[in-house]
């Protein structure tokens, strides 16, 4: 059992070693926090990102309906969101139990979290607005394809990151 005696005053070298120790632990825990989601949930995220721009386009379509009545698009979109968040709750619980750490996004590399938090919503909502202005559904399909590709790309990146640092 460690005692507290003789720990102070510290030399700069001792303090530096203690800080390096905490850095080592932080790196190690960050690797655990980068544990990728299971494949079934990656599939759910990818499907969600593929469906959302198209459904949102249907909700935002002007003038009138696009392919289906707007209320059908809205019901479909909200139902898909509800299913997704239910799946997220299950996946998050299992992820915590498997990794043994809390689910935190702030310890992940900013290069991954910033695009997810900023770029994706801009693509999804932006394509809906462009579709409403132009009536061209290709914008929605492009946003769907991009969202799905980003989801798969980030998953593969996390698999690599986790494998490299674990």
């Amino acid at each position, binding site marked *: *059992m*460690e*005692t*507290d005696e003789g*720990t*102070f*005053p*510290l*030399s*700069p070298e*001792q*303090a*530096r070693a*203690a*800080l390096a*120790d*905490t850095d080592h*632990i*932080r790196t*190690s*825990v*960050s690797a*655990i*926090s980068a544990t990728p989601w299971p494949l079934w949930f990656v599939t759910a995220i990818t499907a969600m990102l593929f469906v959302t721009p198209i459904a949102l386009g249907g909700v935002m379509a002007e003038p009138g309906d696009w392919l289906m009545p707007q209320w059908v698009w809205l019901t479909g979109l909200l139902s898909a969101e509800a299913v997704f968040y239910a799946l997220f709750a299950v996946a998050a619980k299992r992820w915590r*139990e498997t*990794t*043994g*750490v*809390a689910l*935190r996004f702030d*310890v992940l590399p900013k290069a991954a979290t910033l695009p997810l938090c900023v770029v994706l919503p801009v693509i999804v909502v932006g394509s809906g607005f462009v579709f409403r202005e132009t009536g061209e559904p290709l914008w929605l399909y492009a946003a769907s394809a991009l969202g799905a590709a980003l989801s798969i790309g980030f998953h593969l990146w996390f698999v690599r990151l986790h494998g490299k640092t674990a």
Partner: protein
Amino acid sequence: MAGFDATIHAPNRLRICALLDTAGEAEFGVVQEQLGVSPSVLSKHVTVLMDAGYVEQRKAVRDTRRRVWLSLTREGREAYRAHLAALRAIVGP
């Protein structure tokens, strides 16, 4: 030295605080694995930190087995960060 905390500074306790500060909350087994110490040694250090009001525990059941999750209290997080600041001050610019 302001912020220096002798309770936290003991190497394994500093590691526990660093781990919990990063992870937010961690299962006892994960902390033990990361530190490479026995359950009894970890338990003793956790008790010291809990007595100081720096760490709290939550019990949860998984697969019929009881698991203990550890996290820093707000006081513990502040003390740990103040301790890190004190260490950085000792190291200097």
